[in-house]
């Protein structure tokens, strides 16, 4: 009896394996690689990797990246790309910092500033890409340079924010029960996260639900899969692309605030290269550059993989700064090739 049910289960599994879609195949690859990497780190490197706090630290460090990467995935699923997100994050940080410290603003106002910048970016870039049909790469490249330039125009020097209400918000710790560990002195230390992580996790959950269970989410996939067909199937392709870019930039605004909460300062060099990390995370998470395939959970795991590999690189003694960049690039290269092989496999 037991064996028969086992074989039945096995049969079911093989059947599923045969019919694994691109989407799921890429997601599975990502998750497996991440788990292998993290478990390997726990077993061979031990130390910090054993504590849950290590994972939470990654989440806190990368909450802004998680949010931008999610926005990036949305745009990539519709077949576009947006490389202005890092610039927007820097612009948001600087604008909010100036708003709080020099213009006498308060926390709610600074949040409005962050969202406003994201919204403005989204409307302009979305319009240019969707309705004037200009290549998204060029538009967002210009957008990135505009944001970087504007950041220095807003304020040219880096500085720390001293607003008290903001400092309180920044230092808010949310204790995660039951995940703590005992330190060297034998005292129990609670594991904690910050507000940025809560925002990031909310974004991940909301976008996952949206992509899976709303008409808009499915329209994203349809447009990315074949925009001509999507048009014939009765989907408003231009509006869908517009919304994708709008959401991406708006999320970059949100990510900017999360980043601001984490660093508590404004600087022209903040979040430099974040757009590339966001693209890399999306790709590692199984989002296809050609559009139509992607998953927010994958993107989330992609960010974690990227940070974990950076952690591993530094903890095995390759401290030199360049190794991080080189490993990230190598990992990106590997995943791009896997994608290329997976998609061309379908055509043969």
């Amino acid at each position, binding site marked *: 009896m037991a064996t028969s049910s086992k074989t039945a289960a096995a049969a079911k599994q093989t059947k599923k394996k045969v019919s694994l879609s691109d989407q799921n195949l890429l997601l599975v690859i990502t998750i497996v690689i991440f788990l292998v990497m993290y478990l390997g780190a726990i077993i061979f490197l031990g130390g910090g990797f054993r504590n849950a706090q290590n994972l939470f630290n990654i989440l806190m460090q990368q909450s802004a990246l998680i949010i931008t990467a999610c926005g990036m995935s949305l745009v990539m699923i519709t077949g576009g790309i947006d490389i202005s997100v890092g610039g927007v994050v820097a612009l948001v940080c600087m604008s909010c910092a100036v708003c709080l410290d020099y213009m006498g603003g308060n926390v709610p106002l600074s949040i409005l500033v962050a969202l406003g910048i994201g919204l403005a970016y989204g409307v302009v870039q979305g319009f240019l890409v969707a309705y004037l049909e200009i290549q998204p790469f060029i538009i967002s490249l210009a957008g990135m340079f505009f944001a970087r330039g504007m950041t220095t125009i807003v304020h040219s020097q880096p500085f720390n924010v001293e607003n008290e209400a903001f400092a309180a918000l920044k230092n808010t710790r949310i204790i995660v029960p039951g995940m703590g560990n005992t330190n060297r002195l034998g005292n129990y230390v609670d594991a904690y996260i910050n507000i940025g992580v809560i925002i990031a996790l909310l974004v991940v959950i909301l976008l996952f639900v949206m992509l899976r269970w709303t008409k808009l989410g499915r329209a994203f996939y349809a447009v990315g899969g*074949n925009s001509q067909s999507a048009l014939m199937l009765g989907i408003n392709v231009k509006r869908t692309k517009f919304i994708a870019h709008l959401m991406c930039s708006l999320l970059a605004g949100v990510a900017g605030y999360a980043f601001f909460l984490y660093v508590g300062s404004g600087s022209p060099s903040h979040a430099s290269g974040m757009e590339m990390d966001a693209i890399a995370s999306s790709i590692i998470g199984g989002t296809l550059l050609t559009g139509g395939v992607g998953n927010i959970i994958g993107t989330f795991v992609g960010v974690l993989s990227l940070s974990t590999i950076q952690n591993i690189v530094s903890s095995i003694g390759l401290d030199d700064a360049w190794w991080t960049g080189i490993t990230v690039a190598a990992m990106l290269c590997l995943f791009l090739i896997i994608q290329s092989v997976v998609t061309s496999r379908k055509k043969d």
Partner: protein
Amino acid sequence: MKEKSVLEMRGIYKSFPGVRALQNVDFTLEEGEIHALMGENGAGKSTLIKVLTGVYEKDEGQIFLKGLNKPAVIHSPQDAQNLGISTVYQEITLCPNLTVAENMYIGRTKGFGTNWRKMNAGAAKILKDLDIPADATQQLSSYSIAIQQMVAIARAVDMDCKVLILDEPTSSLDDSEVEKLFKMMRDLKAKGVGIIFVTHFLEQVYAVCDKITVLRDGQLVGQYEIENLPRIQLVAKMLGKELNDEEEIKDDSLVYQGADADKNVFEAEGLQSNAGIKPFNFHIKKGEVNGFAGLLGSGRSECVRAIFGADKVIAGKVKMKGKDVKISKPIDAMKLGIAYLSESRKDDGLVGDLSVRDNIILAQQVLRGFFRPYSKSEAYKIADEYIKLLEIKTASADTPIKSLSGGNQQKCIIARWLLTHPDYLILDEPTRGIDIGTKVEIQKLVLKLASEGMSVTFISSETDEMLRTCSRLVVMRDRKVVGEISGSELTQSNIMGTIAGGDKK
């Protein structure tokens, strides 16, 4: 609007840069009728349909729909869907990355969310009713083109539509699938749906349709009851002339008389490419014109592509003028004196933005090599020579080739290959989508070239063109060579019989 009409289109005009695609076209569809829309390639059928479904915006004219007091406003496919017009296009217009069920429901459900369970159940039921062997939850791209097309039809049929448009839906379906489709169409007709049916297969028109509207060169020729329009007249109306106009261009004086007339120029044994054709044998003699006959998708093009090395060759032996050779990519074939005019002019032939001159010299330039470019004056001289020779109508040799008409584009591509002075010329559908005058010119040219000793393989969807030019036909069915016909056996009925695979009559 008449009492029984579900759709009336009045005075439709549509033009594209350089082309008047539709001029003053009227079209009327009554409820519960299956209405064939006929015309040659480029006659304006697809444009008319795309105007109706909102893919193109019409320049002028009005569209009336039953139950609407004023002219319908259709700016997008979505508008058309909402007005009860659903469409199945020739190319599959579904999203390969979505599941079968999603493809059936996306873009036409109400509300904000997606109810997967309901959608999958609904799709499964329709698939079962229509006897389509597909799983609703699978990714669409995991199924064959035929099944994808059936899914597209299922989607259209399931919509609560007043007008159903089927734009050449049968080209990838086999006979039993076509039968299924016809049954669906008759059921819908009984429910009062008006169906517009576009097809190239005359048999199918006479099997299911009630009325025929014929277009030619973007203009309305007329609307006819099916019983009043026998096939021969339908074809005449589509072509715009009596059938025997181009009948006798074959001329016995145009046969190659050289002493080496029975020597094989090219031979292939067990040739097979990765494009899914069965291994085949083939040969052509000096000065011979032969052809591949078979339906669209029977593997005709794949065979010649394998000969030219355009697809990856995976098996077989090839001889050129008696010598063993290896052809693994196009340049190999070109160096051996083989030229290949590809089936799809736009995708595989033209280099659209380049000038007529550059397009003509391209192949010969590649043969000459990287470090020996033609000088500008040489290139002009060659281009002008061939423009004159083939009577290509172009403003100058500098005109971008994409602004020429289809027939003249095709002549440029032929010039490109003639310039390489090939021993063996392969023409895959050289007459597709071009005007009738140029078609005759091309056929005459083929016979003339052969009489001068060139071997030519000529492929055309129109059997009578091949009958007029070829002395031997290789017949294909289901990606396999199934026979060879030559000499006095070369008749329309013999070819049809072999293609269909039944007993020869």
